[in-house]
């Protein structure tokens, strides 16, 4: 197994006698074309294929450069946003939370109750008359402002306090409705009266 047998040596000698096919011209022509494409000589550079090749290379280079620049620009724009997100979602230490709540408490003392409610959206309390807390906007005053200035007023809207008890309000010019108003009287009698 590890030695060449005598018949194998004989086969090797016999194969040397194998007739050669005459492909030399065909192979050389093919080789010349490949050499002109891969290893061009300054004298015999075929113009068209090389121009095409260069154009293709340039186009590929331009596309790759454009892709790289786009990716870099995208990353550059995205980076600060990601940082902000991380900052916002970063865990807060217990001490910081306590300090923050203390600050909020001191703020609550100075800010009017309306704003304090706005700052605490999570604290839900039962409100008997929610309409009492909703500020009323004087739309007439706003209209007047806009007409006089012909521009949108930068002033804050006039907020009037809500008036809940309207039953006690009486207009002196309006008479009260009495039982006599509902009584049916014929027209003749009415004229007499």
């Amino acid at each position, binding site marked *: *197994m*590890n030695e*060449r*047998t*005598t*018949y*194998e040596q*004989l*086969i*090797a000698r*016999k*194969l*040397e*006698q*194998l*007739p*050669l*096919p005459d*492909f*030399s011209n*065909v*192979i*050389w022509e*093919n*080789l*010349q074309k*490949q*050499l002109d494409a*891969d*290893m061009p*000589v300054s004298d*015999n550079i075929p113009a068209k294929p090389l121009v095409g090749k260069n154009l293709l290379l340039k186009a590929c280079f331009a596309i790759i450069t454009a892709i790289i620049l786009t990716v870099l620009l995208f990353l550059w724009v995205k980076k600060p946003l990601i940082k902000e997100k991380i900052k916002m979602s970063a865990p807060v230490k217990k001490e910081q939370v306590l300090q923050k709540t203390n600050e909020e408490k001191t703020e609550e003392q100075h800010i009017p109750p309306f704003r304090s409610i706005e700052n605490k959206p999570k604290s839900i309390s039962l409100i008997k008359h929610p309409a009492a807390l909703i500020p009323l906007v004087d739309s007439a005053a706003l209209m007047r402002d806009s007409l006089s200035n012909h521009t949108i007023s930068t002033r804050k809207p006039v907020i009037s306090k809500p008036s809940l008890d309207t039953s006690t309000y009486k207009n002196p010019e309006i008479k009260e409705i009495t039982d006599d108003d509902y009584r049916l009287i014929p027209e003749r009698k009415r004229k007499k009266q």
Partner: protein
Amino acid sequence: MQAQEAEIALIVKGCLANDRKAQEALFRHFYSFLMPVAMRYSRDELDGADILNRAFMKIFKSMQTFDLGKGSLYAWTKRIVINEGLDHIKSRAKFNYTDEIEFIDDPAIDNSAINKINAEELMAIIRQLPPATHAVFILYAIEGYKHKEIAEQLQVSEGTSKWHLSEARKTLRHKLEDLNVI
């Protein structure tokens, strides 16, 4: 002999300068030496021409790696053609076999049987071998490589190389029997 060496040195110099005439001279000078080598690893003559074509492209492209002082141009170019031939066979076959053997009885073939058939018939029988077996048989029986060298070249174990040689010998005997020469 010295004149031939000087001529080859001139051709190599021209090839290094990418001179087409020198490249053609090299091709024409080595064609009759390298074409039979390419033919041994091919399925037919056209296949052999394709192997030689690719081998010559490698020769021209890597001419700067050749050192005349270290070895002959014949050996260097033959090595390139063999590698190209093996790549050609590798593209058609897998070499990783699980069957590995250390020793096997070789089927005896009488020299007279080989003498009864001509070179073309012999080559036709060898080409009928499976691609991997074909490669191992040519490398061992014709080129004279050892199993260790074949194993390194084909990236298989020595046992696998031996198994392929054994298979080649058995098949060769069967084919010769079919031809009624044994």
